[in-house]
């Protein structure tokens, strides 16, 4: 598997998750207090590091065939989830991820919550909000880094891609101090969905004993084919939506988390 493809897939996936986490952290920090917010971010990151330290070596001792079936299968299901969601958004059946609207909602909720001190944390609401955001969004990052990295025997490269994405987003977040609304999240989610699905299918089939025509080169056909198929489905769903009555077409479209 090409190191470039692995780097791009992990980098884009992490970029999407980092943007989502940054929106919530910014909302918490600007409306509540930065000290508790940053403590939450630190604890969230520490929990993720512990998870990597515990799960990383555990995954690497699994025999390659089992790893490819299990991890390939999981990646495939996970990738189809991302692809499904991005197709629904691109075709208008689900609202695009609106960071500005999510930021406004979080700010309103943060302003109305009462301040409570617990131990060293002076604002428990700000702490838990940022902790949950970092942990939950980071969990997907950890999953992708470990599964991609272990299967391709390139965990350091996958980790470097994740760190690069997080540093980039956090850096921009610190500079602009506003939700990163211009990031084309849905397009990135589609690309990542395609890559997770393609690599997941490739590894899972090899894991159960199948062999691809052209070996690794099959990925060069599989990934573009899935992307083209996904785009065709978007066209089909857009046409279906346009042919539906206007009142029906607006159902289900709103701000999504």
């Amino acid at each position, binding site marked *: 598997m090409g190191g470039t493809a692995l780097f791009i897939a992990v980098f884009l996936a992490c970029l999407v998750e980092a943007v989502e986490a940054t929106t919530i952290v910014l909302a918490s920090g600007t409306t509540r207090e930065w000290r508790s917010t940053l403590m939450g971010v630190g604890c969230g990151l520490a929990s993720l590091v512990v998870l990597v330290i515990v799960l990383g070596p555990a995954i690497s001792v699994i025999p390659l065939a089992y790893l490819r079936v299990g991890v390939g299968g999981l990646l*495939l299901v996970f990738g189809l989830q991302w692809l499904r969601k991005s197709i*629904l958004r691109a075709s208008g059946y689900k609202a695009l991820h609106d960071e500005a609207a999510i930021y406004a909602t979080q700010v309103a909720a943060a302003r109305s919550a009462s301040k409570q001190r617990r131990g060293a944390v002076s604002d428990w609401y700000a702490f838990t909000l940022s902790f949950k955001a970092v942990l939950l969004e980071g969990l997907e990052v950890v999953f992708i880094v470990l599964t991609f990295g272990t299967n391709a025997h390139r965990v350091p490269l996958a980790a470097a891609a994740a760190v690069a994405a997080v540093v980039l987003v956090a850096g921009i977040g610190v500079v602009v101090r506003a939700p990163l609304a211009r990031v084309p999240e849905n397009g990135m989610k589609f690309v990542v969905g395609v890559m997770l699905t393609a690599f997941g*299918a490739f590894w899972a*089939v090899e894991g*159960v004993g199948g062999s691809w025509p052209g070996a690794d080169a*099959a990925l060069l056909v599989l990934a573009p*084919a899935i992307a083209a*198929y996904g785009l065709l489905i978007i066209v089909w769903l857009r046409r279906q939506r346009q042919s539906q009555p206007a009142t029906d077409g607006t159902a289900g479209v709103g701000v999504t988390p």
Partner: protein
Amino acid sequence: MRARLKAFGAFWYDFIIGDDWTVAAGIVIALIITGVVATTTTPAWWIVPAAIAVLLPLSLWRATRHA
């Protein structure tokens, strides 16, 4: 305690399986068939791509038909 366990299970179900369990079930079935066919002389690589080609639009069609 029971509620927490339930919430823990629901989180992982949502994290891995997501909105449509039939996609995950279909992939598992496709992998089992691939494993069986791979023990014969018939090529087995096409079964999972074929499953994706069927499961993805089917899942999307189900999600959008009542929208």
